[in-house]
């Protein structure tokens, strides 16, 4: 079981979360050309090692999280909200 420390809810089983995907994807602007979108949507670095990825605390606060995790050992090194303002709200 991977334990993920949700910044809002605390440490929870990964089964409460849903895995999003690669957090390093930069989505092009909506009016960007098709080639940029093809690259962003269909191609992945597929890192073997520590990667930034998104998870959503779908059965909790529903926050989208940016998680740094090893895809080899599953060890998590950092968790933070994807939305930077949310971190501020929690800190206050």
């Amino acid at each position: 079981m991977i334990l993920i420390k949700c910044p809002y809810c605390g440490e929870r089983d990964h089964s409460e979360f849903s895995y999003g995907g690669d957090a390093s994807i930069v989505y092009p602007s909506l009016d960007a050309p098709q080639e940029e979108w093809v690259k962003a949507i269909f191609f992945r670095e597929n890192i073997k090692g520590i990667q930034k990825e998104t998870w959503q605390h779908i059965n909790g606060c529903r926050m989208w999280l940016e998680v740094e995790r090893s895809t080899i050992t599953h060890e998590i090194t950092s968790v933070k909200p994807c939305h930077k303002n949310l971190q501020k709200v929690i800190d206050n």
Partner: protein
Amino acid sequence: MSSQRIDNFGKINREKQFRFNWENKNYFGYEGDSLASALLANDIRIVGRSFKYHRPRGIMSCGVEESGGLVTIGTGNKKDPNVRATSQELYEGLIASGQNAFPSVNFDLGSVNNYLSRFFAAGFYYKTFMGIPPFEWGKGTAVWMFFEKFIRKAAGMGRVSRLPDPDIYEHANDFCDILVVGSGSAGIASAKEAADKKLDVILVEQDNFIGGDQLSETSFDSNNALAELRSLGVRVMKRTTAFGLYDNCVLGLIERVKDQSNPINKELPKQRFWIVRAKHVIIGSGAFERHIAFNNNDVPGSMTVNASKHYLNRYGVLTGKNIVISTNNDSAYGTAEALVKAGAKVIVLDKRENLNSDLSNNNFEVRNGVVPYNINGAREIKSLDIADTVNSTYKKIDTITCDQVLMSGGWSPAVHLLSHRGVKPKWDSENQCFIPGEAKENITMIGSARGIWGKDDCIASGISGALDALNRLGISKTKYFFPKQGGWENSIEPLYEVKYKKSRSKSFVDFQHDVTCDDVRLAHREGFISVEHLKRYTTLGMANDQGKMGNIIGLSLMADLLGKEIPNVGTTTFRPPFTPVSIGALAGRSVGKHFMPLRTTPMHQWNLNNGATMIDAGLYQRPWYFPKKNETINDAYIREAATVRKTVGICDVTSLGKIAIQGPDSTEFINRVYSNAFAKLPINKTRYGIMLRDDGLVLDDGTCWRISETEYFMTTSTAQAGRVMAFLEELLQVRWPDLKVNVTSVSEQWGVAAISGPKTREVLDQCLEDSSIISNDNLPFMGFISANLKGRIPCKIARISFSGELGFEIYILADYANKMMDILWNSAKKFDGCLYGLEALGALRVEKGHVTGAELDGRTTIDDVGLGNMASNKKSYIGSAMRKRGVLSAEDREKLVGFFPVNKKDTFDSGTIICEKNNIKGFGIGRVTSVTHSPELGHWIGLGFIKGGVEKWKDTIVVGSDPIRNKEMEIQVVSPHMIDPGGKRLHG
């Protein structure tokens, strides 16, 4: 008689006798017995048959490594196959029988295999059974499948009942600071030390008594030890196996709550599956004594040395009278002494020539430099041939009459749980065993699981283990050290196989699977030299015990053949579970109807009360149809659909996804999410919208209402509700954090009824406090408004129609949903209305050519379903860059059309493939996605797709091919808008 119960030994409760049944005969044992000890006490030697050769098998150990004594407990739907007799507690009325034998384990016809064994070497089945013998003539799989039937019947061990398991299993969760696995001297020491430091400690012990190997000591009192631990606050879980160690120090445990008794207390589960999240795990899981491979080393009466000591001092059973003990290490001597004390005649064969001290204290005969060579006897041991070792070859020197042979080829630490974490063990050649490697995670190995043999050292390692945990958890910084591995006075000498002179020997490495030393040699000869290949080719270590005793022997043989050291041959990875885990325990209470949650709408019971037959839609149940007396589903939905077109109908459509969207940037957000224009949607108006995925294909459709300048209300399809919600959240939190918008799922907060048909207004007149509020002027098509149902129940009414008739959707707070249905239905009844379900809803929408998930199957574009004109050209939105890429905009794509049968009496089904008339094969030119009988048109109609669409095929006759249902029919291609294409009825 050779094995027997004796007085003054053991810790069983002789006051309490249990009657049990073995192979249809009754026997007695005592409280505290295991099934194995009770069988031995009754001198029952043959308890099973081996997998391949059906050789007689007796009890060979006293623990979870058992590979001989696998039996079936219980009968009928309580039948429990492949139970280890050694870890099954005896209880009053226990019924057990042997398995993999016909007619019985005592006389098994399958043992003919033993005489044919020369042909049944490892992997022989890969080399034949392909074709007609002897040269495998023929083609295809028929010959194999013929042989396979017989092979399958012969394979397998126990038999599973085909009746549903009547027992209850539970799931439970727990947390602790430190979880200690194993209650041997090391584990107890660890638990005490950690509890002393005020930590929350769970101690897990698979046995029903704590103590581990100490249970074979006469002076050890398990109950005292338990009381002491509990007084320190340690949470002791007996009869609980830590079967797997997972990420973040999470353990899977199985607690056998009721396996030790005849079920009386109905509330208790049979087993409990625990998930425990520990901060640190200390593993004192002990070590397994290995046997020695020599000819006929499997005859009932052969056993590991230490097991015999347990049977004597724990269960009061002397397992033999004339006992030969064969060893290569010091650990066997304690047992020899105990057995002599109990009255057995004991000879010890010690492979080692010169020992530092006399370990026998002159109590029994020791023959040094001597090894076991061959057991004489088939069903029981008659005598043992022994050999001396000259220049590493073995020569028979003598025969000893005996009824038992005990073996100790050394000890293997139980590194299994650590192996689950991917930590490879290291070879310790001094102690001839694999010892645990270093774990980076919070895991500490202690006691003999660490390769430490002496009891005092084990205790010291337990204390060190607790201190190690404290240090690594940052609680204290006490200095500690672990005693070094080993601890015998005289060092062990490798002894894995005593090679037999004859070419075909039966020196078993893996008892249950009948893997012999010759099999290992054959594997080597054929190039299966990697450990994993060896395992897979010979099936060594793949039986119920997963190679707990035999794996190292196999490894050493391969090392020998390769001229390598054992560590250079490798080690196989131990996979969870440590011991087999029942599937019932994994499932827990999620069985039967509770396999998945059931979602119901607030009108669920109301629907049932009013005669609904329900259908599953994802996790929801929705009304399917409302049959009147004797109506079939077809009768019912056709009547319902016709009634809607003629008068009025009411349908529960609550399961739609509902999302509240609020914030100053809501309009911008909506506009980016939908493919059609939304920026100019007026307040109090709603609009049908289509959402695309990032890749430009259709994600979902629904309506979106503008409630205020900054507030919207979105509906989604039932199926995509969850996905759309998560996607919107992702967009706002991940991609567009600058947008000031909040989305909230309100699916559960509202109940929704659709009411439609020409009499809708008349019905609503009687339902609303003020019906003028829904007049054509006040509430035009696609408008919505707040209103009050009679009784001043607030609701929202949207003028939306899925049926193509004048229609409204009424949204009400979930608590009032039943009341709403009462009000609507009481009124509708007066206008000859009906309740209708999903099937009629489908019929009405198919007639209109409205698409649902059957058409929007994740592969269609907005153009494919004929709604391309809706998509905005003036804005960018999710999917806009991608929706026309490559062939997605090709002319000859499959486009939405309607289908009529040419013969109006024909019916057809969804999934029918559309082909050109003279070319009924291949992928076809289209397909049918939805069908219904149209009461309006009086025949069946369908929606679907055809390459090039209606422009190309209008009124052409094609063929619908449905070979799976043996149907074929002529079909006419028509416009998908099969009824009222102008939409006049909408405006009623």
